[in-house]
């Protein structure tokens, strides 16, 4: 008990030595759609540049905008167009991504028109019978309001109509896909690059959601994956963004399912 003061002293000393090692560190935050791709490229970049550390965080496109504004992140990731009040930030398109409307693999649906999709997600179409399938409920699932994927979906497809408040809400592409993969009556939307064998992507107005249709412009549900930042990028951040936009970086993104920035 007499030497009790030693313990806080030791603790303080230990904490002081846990400072940041002399590394270049940048934080990138924002869209959960873009995040896995940036993480993958960042890992490759870190292997080539051992003194660089790139922290990639999610939170959603709007959270990315807020983080860049607040200085919490050097670079933000956004998976939709910028809103008018966000235009003060600089943006660089790093890739393009389609949005796929997905259902359970066992669903009898294979094609929906834009009007039908609007009806389902605005809540006016509630039964599969109205879509030509067997009678049964249709459950639209959407992302949270700050999501870039949701923002792009609403801008590009909903034609001014709002998504019904009765829709189920999931907070990331991953949890959305997980939900659709297990519920035969649910319908949702995720990043085209994240569609895998666990869900079925629907044709929209007869157009298949495939890379070639995005590139030739016939599949119109396409949104940009952008890096956003204040003013000009410098140093490590600039070098990394340049790497993502380089032919090597673009090839990496395409291999994972994205489409080149052009």
């Amino acid at each position, binding site marked *: 008990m007499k030497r009790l003061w030693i313990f806080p002293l030791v603790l303080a000393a230990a904490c002081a030595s846990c400072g940041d090692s002399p590394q270049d560190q940048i934080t990138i935050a924002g869209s959960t759609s873009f995040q896995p791709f940036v993480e993958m490229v960042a890992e490759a970049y870190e292997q080539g540049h051992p003194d660089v550390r790139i922290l990639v965080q999610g939170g959603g496109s709007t959270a990315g905008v807020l983080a860049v504004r607040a200085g919490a992140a050097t670079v933000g990731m956004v998976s939709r167009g910028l809103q008018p009040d966000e235009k003060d930030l600089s943006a660089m398109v790093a890739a393009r991504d389609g949005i796929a409307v997905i259902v359970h693999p066992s669903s009898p649906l294979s094609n929906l028109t834009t009007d039908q999709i609007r009806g389902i997600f605005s809540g006016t179409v509630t039964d599969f019978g109205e879509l030509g399938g067997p009678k049964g409920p249709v459950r639209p699932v959407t992302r*949270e309001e*700050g999501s870039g994927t949701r923002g792009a979906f609403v801008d590009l497809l909903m034609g001014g109509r*709002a998504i019904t408040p*009765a829709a*189920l809400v999931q907070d990331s592409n991953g949890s959305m896909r997980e939900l659709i993969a297990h519920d035969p009556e649910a319908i949702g939307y995720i990043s085209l690059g994240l569609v895998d064998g666990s869900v079925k992507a629907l044709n929209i107005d007869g157009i298949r959601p495939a890379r070639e249709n995005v590139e030739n412009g016939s599949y119109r549900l396409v949104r940009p994956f952008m890096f956003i930042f204040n003013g000009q990028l410098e140093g490590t951040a600039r070098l990394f963004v340049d790497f993502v936009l380089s032919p090597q970086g673009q090839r990496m993104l395409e291999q994972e399912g994205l489409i080149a920035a052009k």
Partner: protein
Amino acid sequence: MAKADIHDWAISKVLFLFALSAISGLALIAIFIVHEGLAVIVSEGAKGFVFSTRWQPLEKHFGILAMIVGSVVVTLGALAIALPLGLGSAIALAEFCPKGPAMALKATIELLAGIPSVVYGGIGFVVLVPLIRVYIGGPGLSVLAASVVLGVMILPNIVSISIDAILAVPQTYREGSIALGATRWQTTYRVVLRAARSGIVAAVILGMGRAVGETMAVLMVAGNSVQVPTSVTSSVRTLTSNIALEMGYAAGQHRQALFATGIVLFIMIMVLNIIATTAARRRA
């Protein structure tokens, strides 16, 4: 002699300082959320904020009634599950089970309280939700799923505190009752439970407080639609899930509205805790 007195005085002052820092932490949090959230309650009007079901923050509509109903319904559902199971377990363990196994079982139930809420949510999402969707109906993500998961989460709280309340009843009460010719169950039901009533009420209300404040598990299994639930299979959003879903990207008035939701939650849980402590203090 004088040095020991000063020693005592100094230690008591230091401990008082620690206690003060805990209370001031609570006060600072309360002041912060009121400061952040009051503006939107004033501009929407307390009535408009609390009694409107229209929550469309991007269009500046901030009504949290749907979420208040969601929180209340899910909490009551959790109680419907945890109360009979919890009270029954507590009575069985405190009155009818032999001492050794009873203490071991009590310790095991208390382990349940240590499981992180996200694990409960994960199990609920993967196991419970598909079962509800297939065998009962609806999307599976529902009031029912949230109630079951919450019920299991608050079970150890209710069992633990109820057992303590029952064990605190003096043995003389039981002996007197048996001496008068009552059976063991009659003794338990009419004498012991009545004597432990205030402690059991406190246990239940503290469990309710935990259920109201639970966020992660409910977020994963409740569906999060902004609508007043119409049946146990309806998707629902609670006050806590609302804050968790939207705080990451909320700005301006939207953020203030989320802090105002925090004020409402704070008040609800304070009220529940005050009721619990006054109930516990009253003698049966």
